[in-house]
């Protein structure tokens, strides 16, 4: 997800300080390593540029043919005459399902990470960490199967409860259809992104310097207060980065969404009603039968997903940078 890799620093010019004279004898290993690492950095930039160019080129072709408004049309019919397609439904569905997933996964993941690092006895913490690692290794198609076969049939109760108590909000109104809605997708995505957020947060919390925790303890802080004063603020930027990794996965998840969502090209204000779609799910379900222009249209939607991901990452970096001097990095 992280695309803001900097260009490696240029090598110092030869007319710098006198000790540069020693450069004449630069060892072969250093030169090879410099070349390798610089090459890797440049390679990444080239790769990203190539993807962007490819997506943009095909997208421009498709949008040129589109007779509807690409951003506001609630329809996906690139083979029609005239071709009409738009990403409104996909953008809505992608963002809504990811927001639900984040709202569920981030607090739970932070809780698990804190439990492993600060509460659990060492053995138990290790076991839980191992299980979380296992969760990360499950392929998404398996989550999709589990979601469709196990999760969906179990959700009637939850949906009924939400409808009874929160139905008045409109967001949790349920007509009684199969629970293959955005909320179900969000729950499934939350489970899928839980491991990555937990693992990264755990590492960050583990690195909180002992001396900061002792400082809080010595002031008479309870364990929870130590976490609030020393651990969470120190881990803040790491948790944000972890969440962004998770969000990236949620935005782009394909098979699991395709398997549990009963998709359609409409926007439901209620999260409990079936319908809607996401970028990745739409691409996966339409790609194999698409015509030339159909594929270009799908690629255009992929470009939008690409841009959304870039914006989300940029926003996260801004948040982290805004309080940089308080980050603890200079302590």
């Amino acid at each position, binding site marked *: 997800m992280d695309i803001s890799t900097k260009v490696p620093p240029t090598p110092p010019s030869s007319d710098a300080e006198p000790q540069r004279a020693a450069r004449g004898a630069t060892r072969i290993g250093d030169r090879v390593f410099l070349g390798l690492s610089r090459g890797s950095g440049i390679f990444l930039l080239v790769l990203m540029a190539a993807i962007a160019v490819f997506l943009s080129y095909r997208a421009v072709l498709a949008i040129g043919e589109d007779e509807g408004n690409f951003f506001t049309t609630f329809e996906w019919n690139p083979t029609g005459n005239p071709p009409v397609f738009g990403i409104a439904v996909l953008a809505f569905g992608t963002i809504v399902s990811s927001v639900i997933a984040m709202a569920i996964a981030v607090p739970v993941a932070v809780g698990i990470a804190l439990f492993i690092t600060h509460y659990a006895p060492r053995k138990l913490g290790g076991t839980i960490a191992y299980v979380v690692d296992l969760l990360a290794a499950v392929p998404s198609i398996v989550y999709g199967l589990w979601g469709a076969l196990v999760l969906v049939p179990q959700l009637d109760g939850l949906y009924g409860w939400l409808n009874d108590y929160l139905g008045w909000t409109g967001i949790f109104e349920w007509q009684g259809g199969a629970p293959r809605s955005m909320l179900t997708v969000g729950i499934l995505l939350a489970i899928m992104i839980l491991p990555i957020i937990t693992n990264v947060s755990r590492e960050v919390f583990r690195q909180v*310097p002992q*001396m*900061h925790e*002792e*400082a*809080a*303890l*010595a*002031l*008479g*802080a*309870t364990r929870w*207060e130590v976490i609030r*004063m*020393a651990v969470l*603020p*120190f881990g*803040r930027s790491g948790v944000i980065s972890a969440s962004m990794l998770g969000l990236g996965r949620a935005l782009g998840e394909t098979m699991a969404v395709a398997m549990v969502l009963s998709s359609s090209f409409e926007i439901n204000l209620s999260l409990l009603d079936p319908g809607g779609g996401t970028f990745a799910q739409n691409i996966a379900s339409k790609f194999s039968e698409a015509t030339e222009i159909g594929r270009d249209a799908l690629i255009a939607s992929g470009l939008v997903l690409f841009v959304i991901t870039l914006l989300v990452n940029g926003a996260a970096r801004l948040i982290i940078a805004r309080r940089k*001097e*308080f*980050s*603890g*990095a*200079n*302590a």
Partner: protein
Amino acid sequence: MAKRIDVSGLNAYYSSFRAIEDISMTVEPRTVTAFIGPSGCGKSTFLRTLNRMHEVTSGGRVEGKVMLDDEDLYGPGVDPVSVRREVGMVFQRPNPFPTMSIYDNVAAGLKLVGTKKKSELDDVVEKSLKGANLWNEVKDRLNKPGSGLSGGQQQRLCIARAIAVEPKVLLMDEPCSALDPISTLAIEDLIGELKERFTIVIVTHNMQQAARVSDRTAFFNLAAVGQPGKLIEIDDTARIFSNPSVQATEDYISGRFG
């Protein structure tokens, strides 16, 4: 306000290893007591038993009695958290909270006990920073991060943070060992002022420092590596440095070992 510390028969363990053995001593209120001794003799461990920080280390365990006036710190039902609110601590490496401003660092302890009123916090922050001889240097940048200060200023910030909650006792674990001589001098002057209000216990590796700042000095030693540390003697500082009653103390302070 300052309280007397009375330790009797204190042993501290790391799991099964006994780090200090059978220590008894009394520390009078409004005095400075220095702990000196070679590395590994248990003086820091002993210091950390006085505010129940020792048991935070995994396997850390304490036997014996520590009385703060007439309250037994290790008595049944005593909450270590409330002990630490009465016995403040300053560490070897300055450790202001890096994510907090100077102001918030000083106010941190007060917020823990529930003080919320801005005017009250303002008063205590100013008073504590003045008490730590730091106010004039930071009053124009209270909202800047504490980690941007110099090492000596950070350590005085930590002292301000510790005294803001009005502890009865202030423990200092080699507070100057990471500082330059000028900053060290500033802290030593400060210790002289603080002892008007607090009972102070300071661990130091610097014997001149012990001689300069303390009223009483305790010498710790260990028989051999792997053996528990013991209190060899405690006496008036002037006497320890001129005419100690134990030969080992004289050998140590005259530089014959350690």
